[in-house]
């Protein structure tokens, strides 16, 4: 005789890790974990550029961890490792910082000093862009700074993207992958389109990552 089927038990609710578990997880981080955390934080700081507002990748790691500690974000032990949770928080906070800058460009914390905009002219004399304004109205000045800053940022990013492209101009696969990235393609799309094996794509991306990191480090003086 068959017994009644046992009703399926609802999956237990995931429990957020305790402070003690988080403390143990810090001590258990391997070299691989910390390398991935550090590289992610550097990558995100470079990605958000001025949105970082002079904060370093170490500030980003710290802020991400504080969000886990204060319960703003939770680490569910059964779902992901502590390192994965921290990396998720790093991505999220970097986006938040970038979004904050985008919405609050006019705040003093994001403003640059007029001295940042001083440039030598053809005669070698230092000039300010405000020299051309007869009586600077505050809104015009702010608009001027904003336009100038955006143009400067765009030009800085052009130089960086060009430098990365140039570093791989003799590497056909890397050039294809870089072009694909810039056109909005992700890894699977590039692999399918250009018939790269998973290994070929990964080793190529690894080369680009190494080269790009070197270029970014040199650019930001690290």
């Amino acid at each position, binding site marked *: 005789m068959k017994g009644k089927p046992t009703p399926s038990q609802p999956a237990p609710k995931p429990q957020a890790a305790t*402070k003690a578990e*988080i*403390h143990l997880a*810090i*001590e258990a*981080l*391997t*070299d*691989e*974990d*910390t*390398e*991935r*955390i*550090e*590289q*992610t934080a550097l*990558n*995100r700081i*470079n*990605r958000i*550029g001025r949105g970082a507002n002079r904060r370093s990748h*170490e500030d980003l*790691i*710290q802020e991400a*961890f*504080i969000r886990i*500690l*204060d319960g703003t974000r939770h680490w569910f032990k059964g779902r992901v490792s502590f390192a994965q949770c921290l*990396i998720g928080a790093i*991505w999220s906070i970097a986006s938040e910082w970038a979004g904050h800058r985008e919405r609050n460009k006019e705040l003093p914390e994001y403003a640059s000093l007029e001295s940042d905009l001083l440039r030598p002219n053809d005669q070698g004399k230092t000039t300010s862009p405000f020299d051309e304004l007869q009586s600077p109205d505050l809104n015009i000045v702010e608009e001027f700074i904003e336009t100038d800053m955006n143009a400067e*940022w*765009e*030009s800085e*990013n*052009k130089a*960086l*993207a060009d430098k*990365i492209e140039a570093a791989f101009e003799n590497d056909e696969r890397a050039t294809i992958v*870089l*072009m*694909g*990235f*810039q*056109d*909005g393609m*992700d*890894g699977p799309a590039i692999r399918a389109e250009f018939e790269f094996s998973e290994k070929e794509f*990964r080793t190529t*991306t*690894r080369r*680009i*990552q*190494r080269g*790009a*990191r*070197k270029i970014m480090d040199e650019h930001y003086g690290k």
Partner: protein
Amino acid sequence: MGNKSRSHNERLARILDNLGHHIQIAPGDELLEAARENGRDPAEVNARVKDILRSAFKAHQQKALVDAKQGYQREISSISERQFHLPRTAQGRRNWFQAVLSQAPQLQPAFTLQNRELSDLSDEDIESHLKKLAQLGVLDAITLPEEQ
């Protein structure tokens, strides 16, 4: 490929986003190998990242402790600063005290009434007990008789 109208900010952002995803999924030994090839010491990175996390953990714990202490101090201050008005007459205060003991009989042992009648308590004792009960907020939970 090659949409030339895209902004340079977007060009760089897309490269970095894809490299960010690569960092997330790349095998750990590859990350370590790349670090060593670039002259970085993964053990030093490990120690530095752990230091950041340990310091933040310690600061968070200390802040929690300070918050708890401040909360306790605030509670103590609010108890000692609580305003209350006792009945003006001794009989009125005695009626209040009686009301407390009848509505919260579990408090009786606290006033050592086992061996004493209510009438044995002096007016000063009753006033002092009522003040303590008021400071502890007990009177807020008691229906008190109107003063005659």
